[in-house]
């Protein structure tokens, strides 16, 4: 990597801690961001010559805080602080602040920063956009591109979200244990949402948006590094790793969807799978299963099968049963039906999903699965009807193409009925 690249990487890595701490000082998101921005500019000048400081986050917090205070004083025409170059040269000052920031402080700062982004008053798409802007430091342009909307629209979305947060009065005191657990749960949900947005785009022509997935993985890892004993965060990290490991095989050269059973498993990322499986085993060993852990375990069973026909469907069926108990939802039942079809045939699976129809009338995958089961049973007309519904509900071009292909594969109607 060139100089600029490693400095960039170091700034990105330090960002959540630094912005989180600056937010605690200034209690204002814009001031914290500007202070961090200023610190980054100084780092770009300072680091190439002097090398990376021992604790980049502490350096950025220190320099950013001084820059902002200095700026405030200048505005009130009071005496300015000594030049920042002078201060940042002082090893002692940096050490002092690094020691002042114990890991517990970082933990709560980063958690607060993430938590602010998923304030319950914000709609999901604003939560994700805000997290990408504030925690990950993606530019508005990059985020707009990921969401396939214009830069202006994204700018507005982020400004609106920030305004709401400023009005919401998030407490700055260190949270108690119960509050911390609640925050973690909310933040985990946002990270999973971010991952899903990348994994299966909710609109447009692009079906998989890798940068969003990679960012979600980075945030999950960050959270787990801060809360290494949290089983659900471990499960979440494992889940996103295991899902993302399959990305290279999920679309073919023409960007058409390749179903799990047809994927070239040699394309799966083995390192990510190994790490994911390790994490899920570790999490489950504590015997406090939660939805992320169980979903990760299901992904691990798939990842563990060298060929599609080696998949342990009985295990997957059981895991879905556990998941249904933890988090009853028609979508979970629909997923379980796929395992049931493999174990007990399409009839049993169809019987299982019929009652879900009412709750899933607008769910693309419901009609996709239903159509596939009917197709297996040779009920061509019913299958066609289900696929037609799926086609109308498809979110991306790749989904629509996949369903069209399914329809084309159906046996053609006899000449008599076609006439």
């Amino acid at each position, binding site marked *: 990597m060139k100089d600029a690249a490693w400095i960039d990487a*170091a700034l990105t890595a330090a960002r959540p801690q630094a912005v989180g701490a600056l937010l605690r000082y200034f209690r204002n998101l814009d001031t914290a961001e500007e202070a961090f921005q200023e610190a980054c500019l100084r780092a770009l000048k300072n680091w190439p010559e002097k090398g990376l400081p021992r604790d980049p986050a502490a350096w950025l917090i220190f320099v950013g805080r001084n820059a902002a205070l200095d700026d405030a004083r200048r505005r009130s025409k009071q005496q300015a602080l000594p030049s920042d170059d002078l201060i940042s040269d002082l090893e002692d000052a940096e050490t002092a602040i690094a020691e002042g920031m114990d890991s517990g402080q970082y933990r709560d700062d980063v958690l607060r920063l993430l938590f602010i982004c998923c304030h319950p008053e914000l709609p999901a798409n604003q939560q994700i956009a805000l997290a990408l802007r504030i925690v990950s430091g993606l530019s508005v342009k990059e985020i707009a591109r990921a969401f396939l909307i214009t830069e202006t629209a994204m700018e507005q979305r982020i400004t609106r979200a920030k305004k709401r947060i400023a009005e919401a009065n998030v407490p700055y005191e260190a949270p108690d244990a119960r509050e911390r657990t609640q925050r973690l749960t909310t933040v985990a949900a946002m990270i999973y949402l971010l991952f899903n947005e990348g994994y299966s785009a909710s609109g447009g022509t692009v079906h998989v948006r890798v940068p969003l997935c990679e960012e979600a993985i980075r945030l999950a890892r960050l959270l787990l*590094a801060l809360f290494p004993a949290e089983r659900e965060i*471990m499960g979440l990290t494992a889940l996103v790793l295991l899902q993302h490991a399959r990305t290279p095989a999920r679309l073919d050269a023409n960007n058409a969807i390749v179903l799990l059973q047809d994927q070239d498993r040699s394309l799966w990322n083995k390192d990510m799978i190994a790490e994911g499986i390790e994490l899920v085993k570790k999490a489950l060993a504590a015997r406090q299963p939660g939805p992320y852990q169980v979903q990760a375990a299901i992904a691990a069973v798939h990842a563990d099968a060298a060929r599609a026909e080696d998949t342990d469907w009985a295990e997957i069926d059981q895991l879905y049963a556990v998941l249904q108990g933890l988090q009853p939802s028609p979508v979970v039942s629909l997923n379980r039906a796929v395992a049931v079809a493999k174990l007990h045939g399409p009839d049993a699976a169809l019987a299982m999903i019929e009652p879900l129809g009412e709750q899933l009338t607008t769910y693309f995958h419901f009609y996709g699965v239903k159509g596939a089961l009917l197709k297996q049973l040779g009920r061509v007309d019913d299958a066609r009807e289900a696929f037609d519904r799926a086609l109308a509900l498809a979110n991306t071009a790749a989904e629509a193409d996949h369903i069209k292909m399914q329809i084309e594969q159906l046996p053609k109607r006899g000449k008599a009925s076609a006439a």
Partner: protein
Amino acid sequence: MLYAILCYDSEAVTTAMSAEEDGALMDRLLAVQEKLAKRGKLGPVARLMPTNTASTLRKGPQTLVLDGPFAETKEQLLGFYVVDCETQEEAVGVASELAKAGTHGTGTYEIRPLMMFKPNAALT
């Protein structure tokens, strides 16, 4: 004399690398390893999974198993090499070759002479 070259870096930075960057880095390191192996100087090489996967066992009257790495540090142990060198200087030279292949600005190599080395079974 056998030396261990222990590789430390900020995991937050290394896990922020894209798959392509990581692959390119590994290729460059592999090239250095192959040169060493040809000269019969390279022993076991290991890359560790991220510290998120670690468990820590604290000894004491009652052993205690904790999640995560044993210490919260700025840089984490990411992997190690065992090399056969005449002198510590030569081992430092090997580490600096690895550092050059890495070519990114952070990280530390610690070079430590081995007190005991038992290769035992050749694991794959």
